[in-house]
Every structure is written in C-alpha cells, then in structure tokens.
C-alpha cells in the first residue's frame, strides 16, 4: 500500500477564506479518492491584535484598513454568501475579533494528541459560526474539551506556552517559503496552491502528485 499524499496547509483561525478553502479542499480530496494526510501549520494574519479587541470585525476593518463601514458590510455580506455556498453559516454579528496565537498553540497541542484536524474544525466553527472566543485560554480549553481533550491539561499547556516555539517555527517556515497569504496548500512537497480554490484544483493537484509517484 502506498504512502498517503501529504498536504501541508498554512492557515489562520480568523481567516474567512481558510474555512471556505478547507471545505473546498475536503471536497477536492473526496473527488481524488486516494489517501491524504493533512497537517495544519500556523499563520498569524494580525499578530498585534489584542486578545480582548473591543469591537467587531467591522470595527476592526474600519479602524485598521480605513474602509468605510458600509463597504465593510458589503464585503462581509459577500464572504458570508460565498461561505453559505459551501455549507457554512458565518455569523459576523457575533464574531469576536481577537489574537489567535493561543489558538495556534492549541492546534499544536492537539496535533501532539492526534486530533489536530478535529481541533481545527472546532476552532473555525467556534469563531465563524458559534460566536465563540478563540483568543482566551479559558474559552479555548472549553472548545478543546468539546472534542475530548483534557481541559486542565490544555490550560496548563497554553499558560506555559509549551507550543509557542512550534507556532513561531511554522510562521518562520511560511516566511521562508514566501507565503504571504492564506490559506496556502502544499501538496506532497511539490505543488503550491494559494487561496480558496475550487475543489477541482485540489483534486487535480492530488492526482498529479499520485501520478508522479506511480511513475517514479
């Protein structure tokens, strides 16, 4: 039996295209039909955001980017509509803009326990759909416990910054690769796919990687 095709994905928890891209990738992987091993890597879009940012994503975009509030509304409506097309009900009225460094540490903790994919899905769902807070240790521990991780062990690891170096290593690797935006997918260490592509793009790249393996 052949080794699964490795897919490395750089992503941030509060990136709307990352959740949409995740669904499209999953669709593409299903179309491909072969064995795929996915590993998520950390990417911080706005590392200077306060954990308890006092405002909504609309406030954040207005203040940070100087975009007019009505234009922000239009942008969020559009991305919400596109999310809906892949089965995701984004609820921007209840999204808590925050710093995601602890969420990334939690993803590395979850990887050490063999449940990184479940953790990634739970964090994205908490942030975009359930109105959860993904910046505070206490909230993250509750989300982690919902997928079976030990609440107190999570708190201990996050407060001790046990996985901070792993997060920084991922970010440094992204910089070394020249990755400036997310989601970013690396298929079998050979093919790069930037953004929330259509499922067919992922399926095609996976098929290409498998063909090359079979030919070698």
């Amino acid at each position, binding site marked *: 039996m052949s080794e699964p095709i490795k897919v490395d994905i750089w992503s941030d928890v509060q990136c*709307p295209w990352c959740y949409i891209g995740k669904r499209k990738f999953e669709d593409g992987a299903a179309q491909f039909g072969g064995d795929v091993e996915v590993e998520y890597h950390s990417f911080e879009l706005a590392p200077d955001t306060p954990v308890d940012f006092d405002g909504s994503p609309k406030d954040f975009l207005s203040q940070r980017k100087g975009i007019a509030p009505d234009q922000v509304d239009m942008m969020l409506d559009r991305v919400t509509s596109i999310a809906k097309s892949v089965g995701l009900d984004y609820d921007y009225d209840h999204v808590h803009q925050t710093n995601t460094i602890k969420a990334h540490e939690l993803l590395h903790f979850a990887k050490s326990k063999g449940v990184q994919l479940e953790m990634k899905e739970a964090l994205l769902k908490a942030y975009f759909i359930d109105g959860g807070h993904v910046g505070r240790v206490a909230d993250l521990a509750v989300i982690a416990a919902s997928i079976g991780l030990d609440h107190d062990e999570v708190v201990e690891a996050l407060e001790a910054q046990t996985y901070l170096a792993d997060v920084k290593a991922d970010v440094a690797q992204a910089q070394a690769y*020249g*990755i400036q935006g*997310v989601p970013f997918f690396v298929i079998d260490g050979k093919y790069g796919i930037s953004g929330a*592509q259509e499922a067919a793009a992922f399926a095609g790249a996976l098929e290409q990687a498998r063909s090359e393996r079979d030919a070698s």
Partner: protein
Amino acid sequence: MTDVTATPFTMVGDPEAAACVGDSCLIPEHHSQAEVNRQLDADLV
C-alpha cells in the same frame, strides 16, 4: 492574493483565488461574480 514568486513549489490553480493577506481578506471581483453565477445556475438567487 499571495505573491508566490519566492515559493519553491510549482504553483497550480487560479492565481487570483481569494485569500487573506495581512489583516485584509479581499474578495476578487471575478470570484464573487463566479459564485453569484453558480448560485443563479442552482436557482439559489
């Protein structure tokens, strides 16, 4: 969109696909229109 000129990978797919760069998550016009067209095709709009 991502500037991928420095990546050691062969880039595949649509180079204009939607992505978040920095703290900005822009929506390419053609991407948005493609989604609307798809929804129109599916009688969702």
